[in-house]
């Protein structure tokens, strides 16, 4: 294994009951880089990204074999799932703030980890919101319901909520697919800034988005990774014919 790998995935297979959703997936995800998963819908992008913080554990009937390691530690063996999820935060397709105040949303994770002191939590909330470029917009309404925010603001709140855990990795599953272009642009700008401090894995079905923001790209097709490389190679110089077809818009 090369040292700057955050995740190391080897021969990973995943079954939803009998449906084989991931087929012998091999992939390395580099630290402090943005890695994009692209591919037509239903090809297993979400399934793979949800393996990285064991979100699939919640689904009845999922069977997994193969290796997923974070920092050379098997996430299905040597680390407990709570610790894993504090190291690997997640942002979902649809903004899903809790029906509570903005402040409580951010404070939720740290509080669950046992942080009690009000001053500590205040500091975490402010820092996370600032990192998520949301502080100026919500600092006067911290105690109002997060559901009153716009969709884009809600999504940045969810990013701030993930940041509040001081994770090493942030997983984003199509984080902008429910947002308008302006909100999308803001999130992309935010990702640009966040990649200095975090390893980011993002699922997107917009190839332009992948091209704009990612360093590396993995192309999926029906549960397999067809090709993974630096984004510039994938987009300008794909090795596999299927990748080229997809990139040039011939299917998908």
């Amino acid at each position: 294994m090369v040292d700057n790998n955050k995740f190391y995935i080897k021969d990973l297979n995943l079954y939803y009951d009998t449906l084989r959703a991931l087929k012998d997936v091999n992939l390395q995800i580099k630290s402090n880089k943005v890695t994009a998963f692209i591919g037509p819908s239903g090809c297993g992008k979400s399934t793979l990204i949800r393996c990285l913080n064991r979100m699939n554990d919640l689904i009845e009937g999922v069977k997994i074999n193969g290796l997923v390691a974070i920092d050379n530690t098997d996430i299905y063996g040597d680390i407990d799932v709570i610790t894993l999820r504090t190291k690997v935060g997640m942002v979902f397709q649809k903004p899903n703030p809790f029906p509570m105040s903005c402040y409580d949303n951010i404070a939720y994770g740290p509080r669950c980890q046992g942080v009690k002191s009000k001053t500590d939590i205040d500091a975490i909330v402010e820092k996370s919101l600032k990192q998520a470029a949301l502080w100026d917009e919500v600092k006067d309404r911290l105690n109002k319901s997060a559901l009153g925010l716009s969709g884009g603001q809600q999504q940045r709140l969810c990013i701030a909520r993930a940041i509040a855990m001081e994770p090493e990795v942030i997983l984003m599953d199509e984080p902008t697919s429910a947002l308008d272009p302006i909100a999308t642009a803001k999130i992309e700008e935010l990702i640009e800034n966040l990649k200095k401090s975090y390893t980011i894995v993002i699922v997107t079905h917009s190839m332009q988005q992948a091209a704009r923001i990612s360093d590396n790209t993995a192309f999926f097709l029906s549960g397999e990774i067809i090709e993974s490389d630096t984004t510039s190679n994938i987009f300008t110089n794909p090795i596999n014919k299927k990748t080229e077809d997809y990139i040039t818009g011939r299917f998908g």
Partner: protein
Amino acid sequence: MRKAKDYLAKILIYLSSFITVGVLLAIIAYIFINGIGLINWSFFTNEYNDKTYYLQFEANKLQLSDNSYKDNIPYTRNVINNDSEPLYIEELGGAIIESKKGSDIEFIISYVEKSSSMLEAKDRRGEIVGIKEGYIIRSINGENIEDKNLEEISNIVGDIQGNIELKVTNPGNGVFTNIITTLYMILLSLSIATPIGILAAIYLVEYARPGKLVSTIRFATESLAGIPSIIYGLFGMAFFVVFLKFSLSLLAGALTISIILLPVIIRSTEEALKAVPDSYREASYGLGATKLQTISKIIIPSAMPGILVAVILSIGRIIGESAALLLTAGTVSKIPENLFSSGGTLTVQAYYVAKEEANIEMACAIGIVVILLIIILNLIAKLISKIFNKANY
């Protein structure tokens, strides 16, 4: 031809709705017309049975403390149009009115001073009972006062040296005891059924793996909800009252009611829990929360309105229950002293007075109270779901 059929169908539909609404209104109207005459303040504060005592106290003169007596007459209860003005008697430290009920005349204590010695009046065994507003005076130191008037009574009292003994009746015909019993029953049943029901629902929705066991439990709760309450009453009587020797009691009643409520609470709580979007669960787990944290901090608070509605509708169920309680808690019109005392709720009392005493007027009066309570509870439930449905998802 088709038109005629259409027309006929329309008439039938209108007729049916008209009959439904009409019957409902007729029932409510009947109950209101029959019962409304009994409803006044003392209906709620009096017990059902009247009680007559001989009560003694020392006669010492007490000035009326309220100076605005002349303009603002301090009688408070039992005042109907054909009552006389109250007369304050210093020896009693209270005022009396003369009240005509048909051809009968009654002298009723309408006002008692705070420091009146009537409040300390003792019965013949020396126990303090106290004479309160609303009590009816029958005799004074053995002297019958039926054919006297207020002035004469005042004179009789004025002549007494030392102790005064009044024969008084604490009037009945009220539902105070039944209201208290109903409250006890609500508190007790809810404190048994709500926690169990909610925990069971949490188990079913959040913990249990879908399978034979869960579907069996679900089928059982659904079937239980459809069984008429008299069956539960029979079970409660056989098991709690007889076998466990609780006798007819609050506890036996509350346990039986709890069994009736459980399926309802479980079902509605389940619905409320299922309505919590999975995205909340995912978000919580994604932040490294444990299952218990997710359930207690996210899922239950989000499901709270639904659970609350279930609890409020359960209160309605308790108020409306009669058959099961009749068999397990009894019909006694006395404030229950402990968990093992018998006591009749409002609805049971309505049954009792109608069946045993043919007192339709009182049954209807109780009916009014029950109808209003149920309507209010339903409105509250509606309001809660409305407010929270808007606020939440």
